[in-house]
């Protein structure tokens, strides 16, 4: 009886970590102008966020620190690469491309909860701590929260 209970606890505690892979070949599929578009949008939204904060104050400006600046171009790229991959295999890739972009957006929704933690940590730590320590800790908070939530979501 006792042994059975212990085994049950061990089984419950067993954590199956979802496999995360790095695929360097994915970089080769991205054209130079696709990198340039994301650089351009990233630079522009950073400038616009600064101008808005200057004109309307930090409360309104802060909203734009979480603006989905490059999300449309990233999702479009994912859709295009997945569609091309399927079409090379002789399959109709439009539906798969859309689904891949939809899965990417679901991941971004999880990441945005991590983004909320980043903002909370930054708000609390900026006053009284070094800026670099604050930004590093907040980024670590975003990464850890996003990873944990992604793992939990995968297992539900």
């Amino acid at each position, binding site marked *: 009886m006792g042994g059975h209970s212990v085994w049950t606890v061990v089984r419950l505690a067993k954590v199956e970590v979802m496999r995360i*892979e*790095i695929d360097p070949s994915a970089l080769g599929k991205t054209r130079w102008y696709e990198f340039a578009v994301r650089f351009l949008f990233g630079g522009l939204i950073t400038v616009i966020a*600064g101008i808005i904060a200057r004109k309307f104050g930090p409360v309104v400006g802060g*909203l734009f620190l979480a603006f*989905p600046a490059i999300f449309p171009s990233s999702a479009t790229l994912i859709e295009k690469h997945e569609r091309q991959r399927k079409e090379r295999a002789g399959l109709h890739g439009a539906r798969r491309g859309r*689904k891949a972009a*939809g899965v990417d957006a679901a991941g971004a929704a999880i990441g945005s*909860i991590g983004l909320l933690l980043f903002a909370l940590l*930054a*708000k609390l730590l900026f006053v009284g701590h070094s800026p670099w320590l604050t930004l590093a800790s907040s980024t670590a908070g975003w990464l850890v929260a996003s990873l944990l939530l992604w793992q939990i979501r995968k297992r539900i």
Partner: protein
Amino acid sequence: MKVLLIRFLIGGIVVSVFAVMGDLFKPKSFAGLFGAAPSVALATLGLTVASDGKYYASLEANSMMAGALAFFAYASCVSWVLMRRRFKALWVTTSVLPVWAVTAFGLWYVWLK
């Protein structure tokens, strides 16, 4: 003008680094996390502290929480539409942007104003 150029370059570099990280990882749901990376915030807040001080940056971070909740609403809508409807990703991701704006400014109105 020089400050704007520096802001543009730093923003472009930080956003591109996170975008490339998103390209590298598999599966796609994991790579999607990098779509909501704090790239613009990292580029902006460091410069804000240097120019306006820590308290100003803390105020921006407070508002950013509303922006992050708006991002959640936006990304959830985009995912829902792409999974269920036959629209192209570019069309969906741009036409759903008002969801971010309405949520962010709605939260600003009831919570931050």
